[in-house]
């Protein structure tokens, strides 16, 4: 029996030894400092590799820093919380704007005051990561909403293209004209969801949290925006993407049954791939009838893990990743929209291409009117669920605006107790 046990243990160790031999890195004296970045999966790993190879790699090598990017596939926020509590989180972390307050509240993110100069970055972006005067992240890039339109449909309906000075009423008129083209044609695709609709409420002067930190859905500004939004859907001038068998307004736009859609710069890559010949252009979001625009800021920042053993090196990497030349590279390759103010004058934005024009509109959107981060306090994204439900039920004609909003208000109050 003992022999068997011994045999088993030897076998086990031999197995470890074999795999270990394959994977162990050679240990040397002047080993570089390894900085681990934990971030989104998808395209980001490839973008970081290109940044390293083509822009910042040589500088980091001089400082004897090795950068390792560790993507989290699937639910990033769940993955981040797990690794923070297991103590396996990277030295530099992506901090998404929608969950930033909650993540920062755990105390695991290093304040960057005094470590990095934050003045070159767009103010509204830095603001989304500022809590009680401490800055917890440097936004790596961002998106806002712009109005995309299909020029073919406007030509066909004989309507003027949307401009940067559109208002809600003029938008509604244009949408109605487009929907008059046919029974299966619609002026604009509206997602029945706060993550698009919210931008209009900001234009009307509403804020998600008042001075006491409470959410008030019965505010006249919110109610009127809500009524306008749902009325457009009910009248058939606007359509929910699901009614066209699509999951999002971009998909609806690609069917060419919809004249306009509100999305960010992520729409461009999708259209180039799925509907490359749609003649689309973009404009700034329409303003409320008093001329005020509103918009969401969707962004993600680099934050530094408070537990990191290599703070100096991490700061150097963070500075390199958000440096002017890194951001310029990202912009000129059309990969993302940079967070530095000075890049507003970059020649890329003056390119004569619809991509450049749409990116420019996204960039300008970040500083036009009431622009707020895509944030919901410590509650997180659950906060908007009652509002989304209200939009769907009212648009389907199941309940009145008043009833739906009262129900949503009750749910949100319950959540924020």
């Amino acid at each position, binding site marked *: 029996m003992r022999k068997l046990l011994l045999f088993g243990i030897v076998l086990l160790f031999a197995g*470890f*030894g074999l795999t270990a031999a394959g994977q162990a890195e050679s240990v040397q004296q002047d080993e570089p400092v390894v900085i681990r970045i934990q971030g989104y999966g*998808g*395209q980001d790993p*490839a973008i970081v590799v290109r940044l390293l190879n083509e822009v910042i790699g040589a500088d980091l090598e001089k400082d004897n820093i090795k950068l*390792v990017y*560790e993507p989290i*596939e699937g639910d990033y926020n769940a993955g981040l919380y797990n690794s923070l509590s297991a103590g396996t989180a990277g030295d530099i972390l992506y901090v998404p704007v929608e969950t930033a307050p909650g993540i920062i509240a755990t105390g695991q993110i290093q304040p960057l005051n005094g470590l990095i100069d934050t003045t070159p970055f767009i103010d509204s972006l830095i603001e989304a990561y500022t809590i009680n005067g401490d800055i917890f992240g440097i936004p790596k890039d961002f998106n806002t909403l712009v109005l995309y339109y299909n020029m073919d449909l406007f030509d066909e309906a004989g309507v003027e293209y949307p401009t940067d000075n559109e208002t809600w009423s003029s938008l509604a008129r244009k949408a109605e004209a487009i929907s008059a083209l046919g029974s299966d044609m619609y002026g604009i695709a509206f997602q029945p969801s706060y993550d698009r609709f919210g931008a209009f409420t900001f234009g009307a002067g509403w804020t998600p949290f008042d001075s006491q930190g409470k959410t008030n859905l019965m505010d006249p500004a919110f109610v009127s925006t809500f009524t306008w939004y749902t009325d457009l859907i009910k009248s058939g001038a606007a359509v929910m993407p699901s009614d066209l068998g699509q999951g999002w307004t971009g998909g609806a736009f690609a069917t060419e049954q919809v004249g306009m859609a509100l999305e960010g710069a992520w729409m461009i890559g999708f259209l180039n*791939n*799925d509907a490359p010949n749609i003649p689309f252009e973009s404009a700034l979001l329409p303003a409320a009838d008093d001329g005020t625009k509103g918009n969401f800021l969707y962004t993600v920042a680099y934050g530094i893990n408070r537990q990191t053993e290599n703070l100096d090196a991490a700061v150097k990497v963070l500075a390199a990743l958000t440096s002017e030349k890194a951001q310029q590279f990202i912009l000129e390759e059309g990969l993302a929209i940079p967070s530095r103010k000075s890049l507003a004058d970059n020649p890329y934005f003056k390119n004569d291409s619809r991509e450049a024009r749409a990116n420019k509109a996204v960039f300008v959107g970040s500083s036009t009117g009431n622009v707020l981060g895509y944030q919901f306090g410590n509650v997180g994204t659950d906060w908007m669920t009652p509002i989304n439900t209200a939009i769907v039920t009212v648009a389907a004609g199941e309940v009145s605006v008043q009833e739906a909003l009262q129900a949503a208000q009750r749910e949100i109050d319950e959540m924020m107790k």
Partner: protein
Amino acid sequence: MTDLQNPDTRAELNFLARRRWARVGVVYVLYLLFMLVFLSPLLFSVVSSFKTNPLDYPPTLKTPQLNPLNWIAAGKLGKAAGGGVWTGGAEPGNEFTFSINYFIEDIENLQEPEFTIPRRKPGAGLAAVKVPTYAADHLGISEIEETRREPYLLESLSGTAVEYTITVTYPEGDGPLLERVPLDILASTELIYLSSTLPASRLERRGRVASFDHIAPGVVGFAFYNYRRVFDETESLSTGRNLFVAWFGNSLFVAIARVVLNLAFASMAGYALARYSFKGRYLLFFIVIASQVIPSQVTFISNYLVLRDGVFGITRLFGVKSLLNTLAGVIVGGAGASAMVESAKVFIMKQFFESLPKETEEAAFIDGAGHFRTFFSVMLPMARPALGAVTILTFQGAWNDFFWPMIVLTSPEDIRTLPIGILYFRQIYGAAGDWGLILSGAVMSAVPVVVLYVVFQKYFLQGLSFGGTKG
């Protein structure tokens, strides 16, 4: 003897025959229904994985990619462009022609369509990050030629069919092999698209633009366009390795390693529990069985921490700080179906050994065989059916395992197993609405298990019966 002349007997026989047929009918209808329910999703996903737009609505089983006539056309185009009949693409010093047919009701309104080779990045996702080679920078298009004009009846409309042809030229020189040659043809609204050398990938702008992803694809490049993308577009930018191949290899390694470990440990444990009487034997067996009912979600945190610290620091002896992000971690670590040795497999082996006659072992002992000899040379060969069942069930479980590898393997990107890789595809391509590549990746990842199932069906059923009956 039945009296067939008797009308009563005949009626009875007819009744019985009718009832028999009715029963057969019911059984077959049920069969067909089950087949429809279980097989049609599979069928549709396989067919959809070939389509340019797998989300097309209403869904159809007829797709141009599966039409042999198009294969011939695609092969000819690939050959003429210089890339070859099978894999296609354009090489310098070649030219090929491409035609499109339109219907027009009133020939007076005829206007020539516009042909352009657009500067377009191939695909979304990873390909969008890479630096592409644009076909537009290398290829030239000849003047448009009208090659045919004849009366044509479209549904009930009478009019004319017109064919236009262009010649695409890749001048001599040291240009690269163009893996993708897109083409857009813009026509006026009077022209209605009928057909072209290869069917259009999509019609856009309310039918005015016929858009082609690749007009020199070769047979494989046309029919297996999505499948090819799985290999072409998924290189790791840091190591240059093909990710899909790497993931496939990882999955295979994990699955085989787990099969070997399960075979070794489950058979030994099963044998010991079946044959030896020692103190605490029933308690041990009870624990083995009880461990089956604990969901792996309960134990994964502690298992994760054990791996993180390198199994209480033991692996540090070999210079490995942590087993996270190693395949060894996936193999050693999990609970439940992801365990190095699974309690259900021990149970199968125990039941099987109990069903074998004791006399064989006694004979072996009398002949002078020791415990090991008896086990390895006498009992194990007799347990082949159970070993087969364990092999297959373990392989299938390990191949499809998602939760545990997802937790252990995060970086670098080529360390993942296939199911995690498919998730990655979903994230990177699904976000751009590009489902073709994801579906074809998923179909390919299902192939080994399907093959295994078809070949070893017998053992699957046996595996179930070993688990279910007391020997």
